[in-house]
């Protein structure tokens, strides 16, 4: 199954037979105090470095999130999307829990975006999926509902079924435009967290073959040496069927781990990408 996203000039195909789709997570004010203050003052100048750093390190797409306290998220997301498109041709993932912000971001975007996100909650689907349909975007969906974030992989699979059924049936979203987020949680809070995520990925792959993405850095929260944990988790998740991640694309070890796994999994013919990365590093 291929999920195709694009900017005005560039197309990216997400799929199990494709190099892994690295969605750079950096453009997000959570935990970034200075960036939050700048956003409150309407200052988007930090975006240039964030975009350039992630592009230079090999991101495939960029996530754009403007969610922080006391910020007009709709206004800032629209402006950020406009500005980022002048800085890069990478396709964007428009990320907000505010419906108006998603609409502003989609409105400012030229191409086929990935929208982050809906859940299995009817109310969220009702508000967001018509927008996704209207703008011809693809959508990330999390298998949680209004009652819980389920721990059990089988329950996450059930909610995925519900999402697929609703999105394709009721809202007319093509199945290939649904990207499931199988829910990555901190391993530090429970040693079985990653096992459950990996199992969820396998179940969804086996039943639907859908593309999947997740917030990879969540896994290492609260632990030392997060880079190593992230870099080990990603190839394991890829082997289970993950085809994309919203991740730290500014850390070389992370990106290298993903690209090495691409090669091992047969998605880098003759190692051409791997060798090209090596040459580019040597040339620096």
């Amino acid at each position: 199954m291929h999920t195709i996203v694009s900017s005005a000039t560039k197309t990216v195909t997400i799929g199990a037979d494709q190099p892994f789709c690295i969605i750079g997570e950096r453009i997000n004010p959570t935990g970034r105090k200075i960036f939050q203050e700048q956003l409150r003052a309407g200052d988007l100048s930090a975006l240039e470095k964030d975009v350039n750093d992630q592009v230079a390190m090999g991101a495939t797409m960029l996530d754009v999130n403007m969610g922080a306290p006391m910020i007009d998220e709709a206004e800032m997301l629209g402006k950020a999307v406009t500005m980022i498109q002048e800085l890069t041709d990478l396709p964007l993932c428009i990320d907000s829990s505010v419906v108006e912000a998603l609409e502003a971001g989609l409105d400012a975007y030229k191409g086929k975006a990935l929208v982050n996100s809906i859940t299995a909650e009817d109310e969220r689907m009702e508000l967001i999926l018509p927008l996704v349909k209207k703008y011809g975007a693809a959508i990330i969906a999390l298998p949680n509902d209004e009652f819980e974030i389920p721990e059990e992989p089988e329950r996450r699979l059930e909610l995925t079924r519900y999402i697929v059924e609703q999105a394709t049936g009721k809202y007319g979203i093509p199945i290939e435009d649904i990207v499931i987020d199988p829910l990555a949680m901190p391993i530090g809070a429970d040693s079985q967290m990653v096992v459950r995520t990996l199992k969820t990925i396998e179940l969804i792959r086996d039943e639907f073959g859908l593309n999947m993405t997740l917030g990879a850095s969540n896994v290492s929260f609260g632990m030392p040496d997060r880079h190593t944990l992230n870099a080990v988790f990603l190839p394991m998740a890829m082997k289970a069927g993950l085809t994309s991640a919203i991740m730290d694309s500014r850390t070389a070890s992370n990106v290298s781990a993903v690209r090495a796994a691409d090669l091992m999994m047969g998605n880098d013919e003759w190692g051409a990408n791997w060798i090209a990365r090596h040459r580019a590093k040597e040339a620096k």
Partner: protein
Amino acid sequence: MTPDDVLKGLYDETMIGNAPAVLELTNQGLEIGMTPETILFDALIPSLEEVGARFERGDYFVPEMLIAGRAMSGALDVLRPLLVAKGVESIGTFLMGTVKGDVHDIGKNLVNIMLEGAGFQVIDIGVQVPPEKFIAAIEEHNPDIVGMSAFLTTTMPMFKANINAIEKAGLRDKVIIMVGGAPVTQEYADVCGADAYAADAATAVRRAKELIAAKRAG
């Protein structure tokens, strides 16, 4: 085993999260005639305080904090009825919930464990807690502190809604209100009218103790 051996053992074993040893030492201490207050206030609580301090310094990590909290709560299960029977009050009662519209609970649960470890009586009213449920729980449990957790920028406004409702119910002066969660900041806590914000579990415990001390000092 002398009382000093028990205290030192409890302190050390709690710090490394050795729940079976903490439970056994607690029982041994009681057998040799130590009071539950001594065990709690001279060993368990200081140990958990040190765990919190190490976490705040970045020397301790989330799993270590969790297992220390669990080791402590195993001992508390034994001590609590004894303390209650003797009329010893807990450090304070902490009512905790994730706000309406939000089902995230990992952070909330971490804070709960650390609060219990610090000697608080924690009443967890779960996720998706609407204002009226906060109010009913305040009326029922009469907590010192109400903690509200939100993980999304879209659910954070519920802090303000809850605080307004608590005010309207005439309960605002009776409780200290603390807020937290990934997107929450000190500025936001100030704007929504909370009494305190904490960025992590260890800080939440420290702030909770400070606020209760200040309140009781009047």
